[in-house]
């Protein structure tokens, strides 16, 4: 967990420069559409569009390697389960001893895997091109309460610190003879001596932090000024609305009989 939590990759492409909301809406509506459209071909189309956007942003390598690492292990499981046990199974493809694989289940698994690939690629595309701090800043500029903005930003800072502390406590407890390997009950017993010191020290720091914030006017109900305002434009606003309206339109089309 070195270098913080963010997956953000420096860049100056169209996607990098876009307003965080535009990218957020793009991600959400791409995922929603992938789960609404009726056939695998449509899902593949959405995936291709997302990959093209990633390539334009100069992220194709990262996007593909990241997505493959997540999707491949899951897809093996999905193909194994659905090809064997899907209730629609009729046509035998091959058999491994008593385990028979069917065409219908494998086709369904392919559809499911494509949809998951869409979800993963859309999410990665968003996190590769958007600084986490920008998301909370943009949310605050459009009316999120500053205290919720604080929650987001400080979580991003505290998580890496706490993870570092977890590693230190693990080493310390191991050097005192705590067994962290072996059967399930022994590993489960080792969990509490690792968690307790970690949680106590991080919880006890909250009171000091709360006082420090109060002293600096955290609880005041005044309007905050931003150091910079995100560039937004009419084309971006129009794109956002169009993208946001696409999933409901697709639902209407499905209800009206889009096969």
């Amino acid at each position, binding site marked *: 967990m070195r270098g913080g939590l963010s997956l953000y990759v420096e860049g100056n492409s169209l996607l990098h420069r876009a307003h965080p909301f535009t990218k957020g809406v793009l991600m959400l509506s791409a995922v929603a559409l992938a789960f609404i459209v009726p056939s695998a071909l449509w899902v593949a189309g959405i995936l291709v569009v997302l990959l093209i956007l990633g390539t334009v942003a100069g992220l194709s390598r990262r996007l593909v390697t990241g997505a493959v690492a997540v999707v491949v292990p899951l897809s093996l499981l999905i193909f194994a389960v659905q090809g064997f046990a899907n209730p629609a199974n009729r046509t035998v493809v091959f058999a491994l001893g008593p385990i028979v694989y069917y065409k219908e289940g494998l086709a369904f698994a392919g559809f499911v895997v494509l949809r998951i690939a869409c*979800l993963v690629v859309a999410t990665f595309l968003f996190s590769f091109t958007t600084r*986490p701090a920008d998301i909370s800043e943009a949310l605050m500029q459009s009316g999120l309460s500053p205290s919720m903005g604080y929650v987001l930003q400080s979580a991003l800072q505290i*998580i890496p610190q706490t*993870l570092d502390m977890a590693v230190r406590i693990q080493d310390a407890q191991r050097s005192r003879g705590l067994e*962290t390997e072996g059967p399930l009950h022994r590993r489960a017993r080792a969990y509490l001596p*690792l968690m307790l010191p970690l949680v*106590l020290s991080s919880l006890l720091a909250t009171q000091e932090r709360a006082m420090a914030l109060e002293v600096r006017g955290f609880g005041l109900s005044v309007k905050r000024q931003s150091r910079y305002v995100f560039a937004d434009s009419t084309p971006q606003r129009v794109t956002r609305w169009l993208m946001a309206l696409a999933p409901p339109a697709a639902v209407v089309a499905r209800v009206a009989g889009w096969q």
Partner: protein
Amino acid sequence: MGVLNAFKFRMNTLAIVLIPVCIAIDWAGHALAQALHLFFLDSIGTVLGGLLAGPWVGGLAGLLTNILSSGSTDPIAWSYCGVAFAIGVVAGIGGYYGWHKTWPGRIILYVLIVLAASIISTPINIGLYGGGSGVAYGDAMYAALVKSGWPTWLAAYLDEASADIPDKFITVVVATAIYFGLPNRYRALFSVWRRSPGEPEPAPAR
């Protein structure tokens, strides 16, 4: 005092500062669980936040834990943020009624958290994976059950519950153990959220 009183929005600075800490505890708990090859254990901070400071703190901690882990290690996690929110809210209601202080209450808390997690996860699993849960041993059970004629929704539910039952057991045990390991003075700091004016000061937890 009805259950709705637990949901009155009384966030002081301390409760707000607690949310990111709970998120970090969720993360560290998950990291330690990975190191020990245990279950997910990614909601200890959520449950603890709910017990200490109510349904909003617990729910928000759960929601944001999943959203933040989507942005780094697990891009699929945000589809399950509603599950984490529900776990935090259930723990918050439990904290409001003080369920974690008695044995029957602890069992109710555990059962409700398992039910909330498994019932909300199952439709997401069906939509996302076509029924499995993405955990190998649970999915093997799912395949066997569907093959022997069980309805897919029931098999999907049992698949999910088979992971949630042990996972949430350790979560609730660890969260209550930590709660009772906290100094009294500190627990009382957070308990302001559940008192309305005129109510007596809460008895210190044993």
